[in-house]
């Protein structure tokens, strides 16, 4: 076995003398003072430097999808973990749980897969053309990530993002049109509304991102929800989250029993 480990190639960064490289750019000469956090996130996840109007779409997405209610499941996790005072551990715990989860920012990538397939299957991008591919998925029992809004008639975040994209003149782009056509068909077929996952997927597909890149971009853009809850949770350290009252717990497990060894004594 060779004692010399193989060399690994990276395109992410290098610590130079007097400057640093980041994804192909000089931090000092090309990024500092001009690039934004949304632009750095795009560079980190897609390797592409966005134009200012494209970066603005990411800002719109980050703001429109904000829902920082501490009771929402992944955010509640930051509250439970930070009840001992550690805010970063809480952010880390929530982030670890996002990948491939059923809720949270990662799902936008799954919604993007669906939207891409629908666009390919119904390139006319009309409600009528979308009915058959959507209906087939409903009949086959496919779980359509991006459709369905729990506990309320519509996802207010979709409306907010749509308004932003209207102002930027981006609602005529192919994937946003796919979203609107598919939503119209889903409404007719199953009375289903699109959720923010699908809307973010559409906006990001129109930026040229792949589904995996969309998941990663959304997780990165959504960090403020977690950070805000972890910071406040770490400051509050509420005893009730470190241990819920016994009366709040309902035991539904196995009945009381005696082990064979105890019984044999």
């Amino acid at each position, binding site marked *: 076995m060779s004692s010399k480990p*193989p060399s*690994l190639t990276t395109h992410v960064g290098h610590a130079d003398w007097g400057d640093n490289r980041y994804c192909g750019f000089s931090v000092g000469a090309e990024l500092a003072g001009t690039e934004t956090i949304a632009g750095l996130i795009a560079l980190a996840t897609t390797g592409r430097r966005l134009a200012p109007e494209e970066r603005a779409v990411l800002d719109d997405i980050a703001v429109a999808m904000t829902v920082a209610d501490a009771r929402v499941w992944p955010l509640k996790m930051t509250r439970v973990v930070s009840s001992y005072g550690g805010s970063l551990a809480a952010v880390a715990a929530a982030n670890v749980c996002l990948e491939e989860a059923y809720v949270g920012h990662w799902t936008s990538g799954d919604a993007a897969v669906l939207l891409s397939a629908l666009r390919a299957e119904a390139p006319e991008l009309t409600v009528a053309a979308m009915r058959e591919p959507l209906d087939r998925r409903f009949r086959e029992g496919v779980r359509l990530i991006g459709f369905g809004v729990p506990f309320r008639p519509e996802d207010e975040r979709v409306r907010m993002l749509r308004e932003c994209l209207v102002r930027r003149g981006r609602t005529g782009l192919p994937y946003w049109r796919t979203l609107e056509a598919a939503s119209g068909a889903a409404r007719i077929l199953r009375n289903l509304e699109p959720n923010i996952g699908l809307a973010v997927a559409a906006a990001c597909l129109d930026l040229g991102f792949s589904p995996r890149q969309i998941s990663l971009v959304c997780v990165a853009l959504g960090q403020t929800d977690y950070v805000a809850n972890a910071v406040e949770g770490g400051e509050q350290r509420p005893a009730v989250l470190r241990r*819920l009252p016994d009366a*709040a*717990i*309902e035991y539904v*497990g196995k009945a009381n029993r005696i*082990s064979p060894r*105890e019984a044999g004594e």
Partner: protein
Amino acid sequence: MSRRGPIEDNEWPEKLKSHVVTAGAAPRIHGYLVESDLAKHYRFTDTALLALTGELPSEAEGAAFDVAMTFLAPLSVAEAPAHAAALARVCGARSSAILAAAAITLAERARFIVAQCGKLLDWLAAPDDALDPSIEAQGEEDRVAVQALRDALARRHVDIEVLAKPLSREAALVATLWFAGLRRPEQVETALVMASLPTVVAEAHCHDVASFREYPIKLPPFEYEDP
């Protein structure tokens, strides 16, 4: 006036369900009293098996689990979980963060191993002579390790039939966990994490805090290229 939204205006359960451990004084695991029953008669590994499977193991299952966990315990600093934990220590992280880094990396390693062993779990449910190449012994090292496992099990009067087949070390250990009652991927993953956590964290704590100049920063070498 307090704000209202979908969470206020929908019905939700008022209690959190507990399935394994009873809350409050005199805790029980799957119905057995911990302090006045399990602690008197069972090893920690038996209690862990009880937690994972819902039932107390037989003598042979408990012994097999014990042996497998001991075989799985050592992970040198060459392995990613111990390397990550050592890096956390070098960075000066607090011990809870070192544990967290170790546990996350161990869990990722366990997921990777179990994914590779997916066919093994199916095969163990109905073993035949047709071994998938992914679970077959790759060389003398595997054969020696599996023989050592069989010898250790024999000392505890445990004979696991499938270990007579030419399995890789990893597959043989998963087969031993399967014999002990761990049949589902998440149960095997949990055992893999539990087994190595002590050695991984112990290794990390042997490194000096903030020992940046002692850490081989160029191992392995990274070459930066502009994309």
